[in-house]
């Protein structure tokens, strides 16, 4: 009875520049509710993706129901083996009925081997809904249901498939207290049934409340596996933060003494995304914004950079209010954003290195004052920037698409350093970049804040914020909940704030 449903041993997975999983072990036993926690990038998603068969493993063994699975293990095999996955984004078809959604992906009952036997299907689905004590009907249109009901439909789908293991990724996001209780009672009922649930969440209170076992991941490894009984939220926070890694903490004296106020953000807000955020950036300062994915960090900086319109609040640069109706306004004022998703927002990948670097500063290469580009001076500038930043490319006429992630990021940097600005906003500047390039990128960020400029850096790698920023503010659920200065800047401090209730 207690043989593991899923058993993973020494799972490893390497992406360019990062070891996402580094010999992780996980056992999933029948009737268990496992709380899987860890920082962003700790390896939770990679682990789940390997279980789901959407990602392969470089090393390690995986067996399901006691049978080892081979390298060809894919999503279809995961489904057949009774593993079901529920992601944050609802994967229902809103225009179809509950029954149709629940039966999605399984063989429908047939009449005369040809037509769908709707009465039988509806009756079967009704039985599943009854077991979950859901007050919805098989004929209801899924698009008309509430968010929690839609999530329940996905759980019903797992039950309909008779899934043995159900992995829920942040299932309580945007649910109310009573809806969460409803969700939890369904989860408990499934566990009592002998099924196993993996509950991935940043909400530690829920982890403590509902799970029977806590699994903490850090740097691609499982660093803690303990029964939930007798563990406190505080213990989990400490395990998530982990032992301070040597040499990451920056010597206090190296943190810069703040200069004048450069940028002042006052009560900035956008409904449902960012709530009444105020902070300042001083000249010569690198301000880190920490927070979990979805805490509103990107949404906040997009408001400051004019990429989205704020519904309330104001931004001042050197005491003067800045009009922020478009990125154009922000750039004219000297506020520039280096977005997180560089391929979709930072670069025109089918254009050349030269064309990308000069895009925001094209007006400077005019011919005799006319709006025609003087190619020679444009090329010269592009070459200078490529040399200065050490972009590894065969030449400035190379398509950006063909460069590596780190070099693409350097092109984004080159583009904005060439344009110049007062406040540089870096959203996850080192994501998908190898270790060597990371250091170089921070060296360039450091250089960009000289001469009366300032920088804001968002990073999910808290150790990076600790080692590189002069001050760190922490966001949670769209609000800025605290600020860390000087010696108080530590990974443990950030984690505690980011996860606090």
């Amino acid at each position, binding site marked *: 009875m207690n043989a593991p449903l899923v058993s993973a041993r020494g799972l490893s997975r390497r992406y360019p520049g990062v070891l996402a999983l580094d010999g992780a072990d996980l056992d999933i036993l029948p009737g268990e509710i496992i709380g899987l926690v860890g920082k962003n990038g700790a390896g939770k998603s990679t682990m789940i993706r390997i279980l789901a068969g959407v990602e392969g493993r470089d090393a390690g063994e995986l067996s399901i129901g006691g049978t080892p699975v081979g390298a060809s293990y894919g999503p279809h095999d995961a489904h057949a083996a009774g593993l079901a996955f529920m992601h944050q984004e609802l994967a229902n078809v809103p225009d179809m009925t509950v029954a149709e959604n629940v039966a999605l992906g399984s063989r429908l009952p047939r009449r005369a081997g040809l037509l769908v036997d709707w009465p039988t299907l509806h009756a079967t689905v009704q039985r599943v809904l009854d077991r979950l004590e859901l007050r919805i009907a098989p004929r209801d249109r899924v698009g008309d249901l509430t968010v929690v009901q839609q999530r329940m439909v996905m759980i019903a789908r797992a039950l309909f498939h008779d899934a043995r293991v159900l992995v829920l990724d942040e299932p309580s996001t945007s649910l109310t207290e009573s809806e969460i209780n409803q969700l939890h009672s369904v989860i408990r009922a499934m566990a009592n049934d002998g099924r196993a649930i993996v509950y991935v969440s940043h909400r530690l209170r829920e982890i403590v409340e509902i799970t029977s076992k806590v699994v903490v991941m850090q740097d691609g490894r499982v660093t803690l596996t303990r029964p939930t009984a007798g563990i406190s939220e505080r213990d989990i926070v400490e395990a998530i933060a982990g032992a301070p890694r040597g040499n990451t903490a920056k010597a206090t004296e190296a943190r810069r003494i703040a200069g004048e106020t450069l940028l002042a953000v006052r009560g900035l807000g956008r409904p449902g995304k960012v709530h009444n955020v105020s902070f300042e950036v001083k000249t010569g300062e690198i301000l880190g914004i920490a927070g979990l994915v979805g805490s509103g960090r990107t949404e906040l900086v997009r408001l400051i950079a004019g990429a989205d319109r704020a519904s309330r609040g104001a931004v001042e640069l050197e005491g003067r209010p800045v009009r922020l109706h478009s990125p154009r306004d922000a750039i004219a004022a000297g506020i520039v954003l280096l977005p997180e998703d560089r391929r979709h927002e930072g670069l025109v990948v*089918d254009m050349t290195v030269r064309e990308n670097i000069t895009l925001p500063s094209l*007006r400077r290469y005019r011919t005799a004052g006319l709006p025609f580009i003087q190619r020679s001076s444009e090329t010269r500038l592009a070459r200078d920037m490529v040399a200065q930043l050490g972009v590894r490319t065969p030449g400035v006429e190379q398509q950006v698409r063909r460069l590596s992630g780190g070099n693409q990021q350097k092109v984004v940097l080159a583009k904005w350093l060439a344009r110049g600005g007062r406040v540089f906003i870096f959203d996850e500047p080192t994501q998908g970049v190898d270790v060597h390039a990371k250091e170089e990128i921070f060296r360039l960020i450091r250089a960009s804040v000289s001469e009366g400029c300032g920088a804001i850096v968002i990073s999910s790698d808290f150790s990076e914020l600790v080692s590189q920023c002069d001050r760190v503010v922490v966001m949670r659920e769209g609000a800025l909940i605290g600020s860390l200065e000087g010696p108080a800047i530590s990974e443990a401090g950030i984690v505690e704030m980011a996860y606090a209730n």
Partner: protein
Amino acid sequence: MSNQEAETIGQAGLPQEANRPSGSSLRLIGRYGIPIAMVVTFAVFSLLKPDAFFTLFMMKSILRDSAPLMIAALGVTFVLVMNDYDISLGGLTALLATCAVLFVSTDHANLGVVGAVVATIALGGALAFTSGLLISYAGLPSFILTIAMGTVFTGIGLQLTGSRSIYGGVPEGYAAIAGGNLFGLSNQVFIGLGVLVLAHLFLRHSEAGRYMYAIGGNAEAARLSGVPVKLLKAVGFGMVGLAAAITAILLTSQANAANPNTGLGLLLPAYAAAFLGSSMFRSGSFTALGTALAALYLQVIGAGLTILSLSGPLTQIIQGLILAAAIGLSRFNRQAAR
């Protein structure tokens, strides 16, 4: 060259190409297929009808007759660069042709030749720019909106003329625009060349042109870089209007009249020319020069078929097939470039 040798070279210089050894010969066809096809087509017509086709007179008239199509095709190149479509081209040209004659005719508005030309071009630019504003600021899909606007334009043209051709009262000076000659070549050749030079300068060398390519490549990245995306999109549609107006003037000047169908048939060959032109380049991008060269090629085919007495339906079939083939080739080149 042996296979082994090819691999060694590939590994030394171009590792990406070495991965697709069979693709490289296909890519050569993709890259040089159009120029080769042009030469072959030309040779075939010349051999079949040496005394009718391969003559100075024929060459001159091909150059002359390609001008209206080339100008219209250059117009749509501006929106294609930004990944938009303007399907109203035919209806717009028809309406502008009617308006041009109404403007210039002494029986109607009698604005004089210069006045009529200026008014037509301004009207064309304004109408298309308005569609552009609706598309970029109200966020309407360009494909469907311009189908709707094209129908509206065609309808207005028919309404204005009571579905009849209008002629009479067209001053000689107006007919001379398309009918006149300079250095032994039709004025139309020079007008076409002038539009080509302007379009090339704009797209290839101006800031706005570079921004348009950036919008086509990645509109959001362009917006975040400070490019006025919406305005430039509207300007691109305005360019279609200007081109349609010049085309309409040439067509009516040549015919000394406008009929409600003038220019309606330009839509398909204009897109065929633009796509065919884009398939000549490795990156698959739309350029003024590519469009112009392809328009000329379509005219060569048209003239050749006329000489062989095969014009009419066959021309349509061939133009349609060319458009389909050009889209395929263009896509293939674009993927090969990745």
